[in-house]
């Protein structure tokens, strides 16, 4: 017996009402991170432990700055999506889950915005 109405079946969006959009966004972000993680980590590993002027020079370079900003933007949603999956699986109860999801969105947005702002400020010579 089919429980879905014809309209629901045609729309194909399921109970979450957004179909597979979130799933696709997760994959697109993951694929984008494949090159980004290398391009971001390489200069970072060289920079950690170096002195202030050297590190500033690395991130004043447009290439490293653009990569770092792209990385922070992409990791912000990848991290939110990943932690959201974990929360949905392990946190029980509507109030606790809603709180955790809200905290997750705030935390990941804070990380992303702080990262983008910091790199932009350095790159613009501030």
């Amino acid at each position, binding site marked *: 017996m089919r429980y879905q109405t014809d309209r629901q079946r045609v729309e194909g969006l399921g109970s979450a009402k957004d179909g597979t959009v979130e799933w696709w966004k997760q994959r697109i972000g993951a694929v984008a991170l494949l090159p980004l993680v290398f391009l971001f980590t390489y200069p970072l590993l*060289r920079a950690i432990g170096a002195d202030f002027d050297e590190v500033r020079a690395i991130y004043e370079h447009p290439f490293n700055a653009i990569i770092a900003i792209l990385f922070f933007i992409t990791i912000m949603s990848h991290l939110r999506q990943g932690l959201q999956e974990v929360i949905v699986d392990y946190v029980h109860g509507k109030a606790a889950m809603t709180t955790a999801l809200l905290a997750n969105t705030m935390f990941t947005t804070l990380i992303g915005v702080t990262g983008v702002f910091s790199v932009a400020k350095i790159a613009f010579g501030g």
Partner: protein
Amino acid sequence: MAEVNQGNRPLSPHLSIYRPLWTMILSITHRITGVGLAISITMITWWFLALAISEEYFEFANAMMTSVVGGFILIVSLWALSFHFCNGIRHLFWDAGKGLELETAYRSGLAVMAGSVVLTVIGILVATGVF
């Protein structure tokens, strides 16, 4: 008559009753490394913020990152990132419907583990200025 266990029976086959399998261990490691990397990226973001604030504050953040504890966390993070990266590629292949046979999944798991160690070593060499 045999004693009947009423009310204290497992209702569904919970994860903990299974013998841990290689693929299960890799699966949970993907999650653990993902959650752990949230801490790593918080540290890294703080380091970038310090770089944007002032030289004095950056020196402090940089000293924390290169301390014994900081260095240990960074090396563990590097391995976590390498693992999550390699296993993420494995997941993308699965999403495309490839490599789902049990034998292949076991072997790709071994490749992921080997790859994560290799990438970690390369990362450490980059950090120490060899590359």
